[in-house]
């Protein structure tokens, strides 16, 4: 049985475990119908031209873990930002781990989707926000919607800011030979509120894992959201990340994606600017080796006037790794005075590595500033000579230049400990010890 058939037949089993009378279940039913009609996207579709899901569909994934698995904190501590205190929403094989988590209801709600979807006290928020900005016809998003049951639920009321950053961690233990996970997150940040979120998917063994995640983020008027995605998974873990962001007047959303590992990673990042004077920032550092593959698909839809968007993606590709950057910007006719910037710079450090970079601009307004630039190159030989002439060996010189190349993406990371952590990951990924913390 291929994966699509397996998922559809599993939906019946899934229904035995959720409240089918709940209004949310109508949403799930509509979603599974859409997925059934569309199936997995194929390479024939323009948006999937360079990323194939074929081999993943042949894997016999378990759709639900057979048993509840536990982890000791000491075994997974290194995946947390343990240098500082944080709220934690932790899942082990898709199931919430209260033991590893630290949630709160003190002025803000930092808790679970399963509670939000079932308890009356969250009904109002769920009615207004759940599955509103997420696509109702994109097949993978609807697949997630059909099975939506668990994930992170974050609600920040007007003028509030949680005392510390929030970490969302998804661990897979490898107790199943191969496991498919479909977390569903909802983040609602009300007027003038602020939040910082770090999200990470981590497989702990070399068993196959496929995650198809959907996150909806709503930033109300003057809200500020900083979202960091850390993608540094093992070579048998694949991730399809579908993130939808709805922004209102004067809100600021900055989303950073650090892609350092994993077998196949597809980021579908969609920003919708439903207001004026909005600032949307998307930044990414991708450093790949071996046969890893990362595909960044971004969309910014400028719907109202006087907004800005900034995209800056840097990629370093070694070995036989492959990358894709596809950045789509739509500026509606009424969205005058839009400033939209997009940059994608890549360095190929191996003859076998490749990157496909494609800007897609659809501009219907006439008074706008839009720019895009894409470069693919090698390291600057003059710069290499400069470093080496100061006594820095070739390998370290190469690493320093790659670090410098990726650096301006890090400048906007607002949690200093996270910035340090990412610098360490970069140094490790580049295989050097430079004698100081980058």
């Amino acid at each position, binding site marked *: 049985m291929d994966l699509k058939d397996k998922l559809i037949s599993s939906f019946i089993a899934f229904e035995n475990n959720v409240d089918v009378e709940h209004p949310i279940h109508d949403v799930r039913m509509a979603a599974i119908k859409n997925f059934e009609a569309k199936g997995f996207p194929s390479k024939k579709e323009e948006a999937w031209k360079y990323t194939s899901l074929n081999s993943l569909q042949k894997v016999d994934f378990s759709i639900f873990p057979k048993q509840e698995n536990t982890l000791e904190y000491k075994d997974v501590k290194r995946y947390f930002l343990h240098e500082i205190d944080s709220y934690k929403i932790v899942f082990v094989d898709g199931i919430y781990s209260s033991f590893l988590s630290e949630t709160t209801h003190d002025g803000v709600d930092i808790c679970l989707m399963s509670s939000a979807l079932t308890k009356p006290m969250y009904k109002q928020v769920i009615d207004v926000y759940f599955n509103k900005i997420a696509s109702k016809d994109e097949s993978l998003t609807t697949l997630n919607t059909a099975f939506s049951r668990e994930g992170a639920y974050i609600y920040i009321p007007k003028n509030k800011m949680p005392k510390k950053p929030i970490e969302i961690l998804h661990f897979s233990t490898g107790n199943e030979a191969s496991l498919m996970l479909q977390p569903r997150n909802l983040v609602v940040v009300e007027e003038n509120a602020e939040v910082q979120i770090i999200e990470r998917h981590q497989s702990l063994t070399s068993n196959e894992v496929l995650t198809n995640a959907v996150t909806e983020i709503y930033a109300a008027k003057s809200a500020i959201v900083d979202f960091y995605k850390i993608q540094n998974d093992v070579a048998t873990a694949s991730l399809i990340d579908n993130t939808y962001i709805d922004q209102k007047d004067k809100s600021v959303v900055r989303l950073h994606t650090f892609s350092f590992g994993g077998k196949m990673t597809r980021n579908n990042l969609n920003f919708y600017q439903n207001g004026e004077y909005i600032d949307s920032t998307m930044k990414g550092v991708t450093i790949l080796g071996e046969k890893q593959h990362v595909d960044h698909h971004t969309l910014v839809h400028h719907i109202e006037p006087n907004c800005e968007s900034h995209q800056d993606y840097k990629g370093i590709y070694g070995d036989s790794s492959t990358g894709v950057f596809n950045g789509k910007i739509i500026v509606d006719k009424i969205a005058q005075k839009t400033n939209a910037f997009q940059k994608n710079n890549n360095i190929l450090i191996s003859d076998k590595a490749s990157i496909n970079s494609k800007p897609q601009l659809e501009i219907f307004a006439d008074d706008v500033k839009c720019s895009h630039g894409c470069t693919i190159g090698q390291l600057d030989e003059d710069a290499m000579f400069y470093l080496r002439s100061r*006594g820095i060996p070739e390998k370290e010189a190469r690493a320093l230049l790659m670090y*410098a190349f990726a650096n301006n993406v890090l400048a906007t990371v607002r949690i200093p400990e996270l910035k340090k952590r990412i610098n360490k990951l970069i140094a490790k990924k580049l295989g050097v010890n430079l004698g100081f913390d980058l």
Partner: protein
Amino acid sequence: MLKIKDLHASVEGKEILRGINLEVKAGEVHAIMGPNGSGKSTLASVIAGKEEFEVTQGSVELYGEDLEEVSPEGRAHKGLFLSFQYPIEIPGVSVTNFIKTAINESRKANGLEDMPAKDMLKMIREKSELLEIDRKFLSRSLNEGFSGGEKKRNEVFQMAMLEPKVAILDETDSGLDIDALRIVANGVNKLKSKDNAVILITHYQRLLEYIVPDFVHVLHNGKIVKSGGKDLALQLEEKGYDWLKQETAV
């Protein structure tokens, strides 16, 4: 300590150096002057080991060792330093961290332990005072957004920290105003000793008023066409390079 014998070098098949002979002894200051395109910067790059230049004939020796097979970093570890005409910007790496890495890599190559942090800080303080460099400057990203003068001063600061045996300063005076020139020259003079040597590559005589050379060489068409004492620089300032070109043509 540095001996250049009949050095020929070319880039992409085009010969730029056509037989250079030069010997630099400890304690000496040499100035290499010459019109644009005469091969001055190429000579500096070839001595420092830039791979894009091919040495087709002759040799560069440091303490009697032929450098032909030695990498640029290997040459630095042996005590060679090149101050660049156009230093490279390295965003995200501070001046301090960069110099620490450079020093410790050299120490590692020479079988020494990393320099203790306390000694490093003391040295940084002394050398930055010598070159009148503000401490805040040292935490900035290397050369990023530096003015022309700041870049050159930073080059000489790195030289001060690395304590090379042979330092080649390529057009270090260009882009410097008179105050900065005085500070940089003063720094170089203080770093000079009987055990090291300096090669100044310059287009103008101006720098030589502050750092007085023992020898002046004029480079033209990839060859040293005239050598002399410091007076030669004054003559060049007065008469330009044309009389020399004519003289060599004859």
